[in-house]
């Protein structure tokens, strides 16, 4: 046990202690401030997870930067956040590809230098000239990852053969067990594919749009709920929902890694690709470091991080990225079919014409689709 005088001394600082500590703090304050200031903050607008340590931690450490993410859910939400903020608020913006055109049209993003990015290493020709990313031969956004949406299901409730068609959602045994991701665009796109609209799934005339609505309404008795990301995740995990419409491996992949009996597949009628792209915010003063970050995300290391992303996985879009994934994490490469020759290899699916890039309705407004979605939920 310590002598009593020592304990008393520890608990009662003398005037000299106070002066010493206070003086030290006062003298070191400017250096603390300077050390703080030397870390560059990058304001990021993105879907949840992209600004988390598993994605940006290594880049932050190597470049002495700090990402300050602002997360959104849905392209509309993203556009609104930008519209309501002063120019230059966001340095880097991750958006769904179908919204890039609107970002550019509104003047929210800077032109990129195509020479900065590895276009010659892309896994598919489409990725080099992705729709909406170029305007007048100028590049405005750089695709970094993608994922496919199709039939997501509990493997104990439906077989792979049954899941090979959207018809599985109407299966009698799944009554009340089919869930919806609560966003009209992917679900109505899938219903359009089920109706045989193929590549024209977003370009529906009045008759085709009515038919899509009719097909969707016929699914309503099967539906057990409408969920956000957390609800979808929980519903599949605890078995409340045995099939999910409107999602894909970006949710089931996370559960699958934990051993849940769920899977996603691209049915014979076709699937939808979500595509995520980075743009640099208009008037950002940190364009150089943002360019470096986009290059990092397209590097083999960045592509592997994207494929392993904790929040939701995406597939690699560069050859070097895919090769590195197969080398460092063959289990994930195999699970996500990112291997040449595997059935459901995302690139092979695109080549076979079974994948259609997500878009917005061509002959109706988003409002029309949303109105119908509200009616459907109330039906």
């Amino acid at each position, binding site marked *: 046990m310590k002598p009593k005088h020592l304990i008393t001394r520890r608990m009662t600082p003398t005037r000299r202690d106070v002066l010493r500590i206070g003086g030290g703090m006062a003298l070191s304050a400017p250096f603390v401030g300077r050390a703080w200031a030397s870390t560059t903050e990058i304001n990021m607008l993105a879907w949840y997870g992209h600004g988390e340590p598993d994605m940006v931690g290594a880049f932050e450490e190597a470049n002495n930067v700090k990402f300050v993410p602002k997360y959104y859910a849905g392209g509309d939400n993203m556009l609104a956040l930008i519209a309501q903020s002063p120019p230059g608020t966001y340095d880097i913006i991750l958006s769904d590809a179908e919204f890039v055109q609107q970002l550019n049209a509104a003047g929210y993003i800077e032109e990129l230098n195509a020479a900065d990015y590895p276009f010659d290493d892309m896994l598919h020709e489409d990725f080099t000239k992705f729709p909406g990313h170029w305007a007048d031969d100028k590049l405005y956004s750089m695709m970094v990852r993608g994922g496919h949406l199709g039939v997501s299901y509990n493997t104990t409730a439906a077989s792979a053969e049954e899941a090979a068609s959207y018809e599985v959602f109407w299966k009698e045994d799944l009554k009340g067990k089919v869930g919806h991701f609560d966003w009209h665009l992917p679900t109505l796109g899938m219903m359009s594919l089920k109706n045989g609209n193929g590549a024209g799934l977003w370009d529906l005339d009045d008759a085709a749009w009515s038919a899509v609505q009719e097909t969707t309404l016929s699914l309503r008795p099967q539906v057990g709920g409408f969920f956000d990301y957390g609800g979808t995740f929980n519903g599949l995990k605890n078995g409340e929902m045995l099939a999910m419409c409107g999602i894909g491996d970006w949710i089931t992949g996370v559960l699958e890694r934990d051993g849940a009996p769920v899977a996603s597949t691209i049915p014979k009628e076709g699937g939808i690709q979500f595509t995520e792209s980075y743009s640099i915010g208009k008037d950002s003063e940190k364009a150089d470091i943002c360019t470096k970050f986009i290059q990092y995300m397209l590097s083999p290391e960045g592509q592997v991080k994207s494929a392993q992303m904790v929040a939701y996985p995406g597939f690699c879009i560069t050859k070097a990225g895919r090769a590195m994934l197969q080398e460092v994490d063959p289990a994930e490469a195999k699970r996500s079919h990112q291997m040449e020759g595997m059935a459901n290899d995302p690139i092979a699916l695109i080549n076979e014409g079974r994948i259609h890039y997500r878009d917005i309705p061509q002959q109706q407004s988003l409002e029309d689709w949303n109105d119908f979605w509200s009616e459907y*939920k109330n039906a």
Partner: protein
Amino acid sequence: MKRKFDLYAMTWRLPIIFWQLLFFVGPLLFMVAISFFVVKNYRMTEAFEMVNWQKMLSRGYFWDSYWYTIFIAGISTTVAMLLAFPASFALAFRASDNLRRWAIFLLIIPFFTSYLVRTFSWYVILAESGVVNAMLGQIGLGPFKMLNTHFGTVIGYLTLTLPLVVILQTVTMANVDKTLIEAARNLGCKPLATIWRVVLPLSKTGLIVAALFCFILSFGDFVAPFYLGGSQEPTLPILILDTTKSGQQWPRAAVVAIMMMATLFTIAFAAIALAYRKGGAR
């Protein structure tokens, strides 16, 4: 008689008046104003157009959500009042002062934790593979679907409101003059008749206020119908979210919000009028 202006008293009243003007009346007027604005390129633009009102009030799904929200909040209020009454009665008339104090303290404890967390905890209990179905399974019953149903929604509402209703009912009944109850019993009134003819009329105001609070909280709650009810059918708070999510239609969401407030004002005024209506029990 003309009242003298009392500067001292007014000084004490001013902060609450300013507070209400700044954080209630101001935002309310702003909400009414934006219901006439329009959205262009995801940005709200000042205007005075009826388009949002016409659009929302002419849609069938708005009225479906409206009546469903009133219905499910009404069910929740009825269930909460019925479930709370026996407990409150026992606490008010049977429990010692000390026990009552402890019970009220324990009823307050749920409010220390996040309502969202409490709601999510129901997943473990109500899921088909959850605690309740496991217990029912032991006696050969079930499994029953409880999550993503109206039942789930009501359970969520009760999580929010039941402790509050019990507290309000208990405090109200504890203040009933017990000599009147004893008098009724001495005069031969049976127990149930005593409750009906003495306790309820004397606690009417507090009970109506408890029911009103329960209805208001349920009517405006987003969490329970979304997470435990699976959004089927969508209530008005869910409709507000859907409206803002798609196209950032804050003006249309304002229309829904104003309709909700108008409904609550009407119900609250009716309830208060009923609570303080003169003409007692016979």
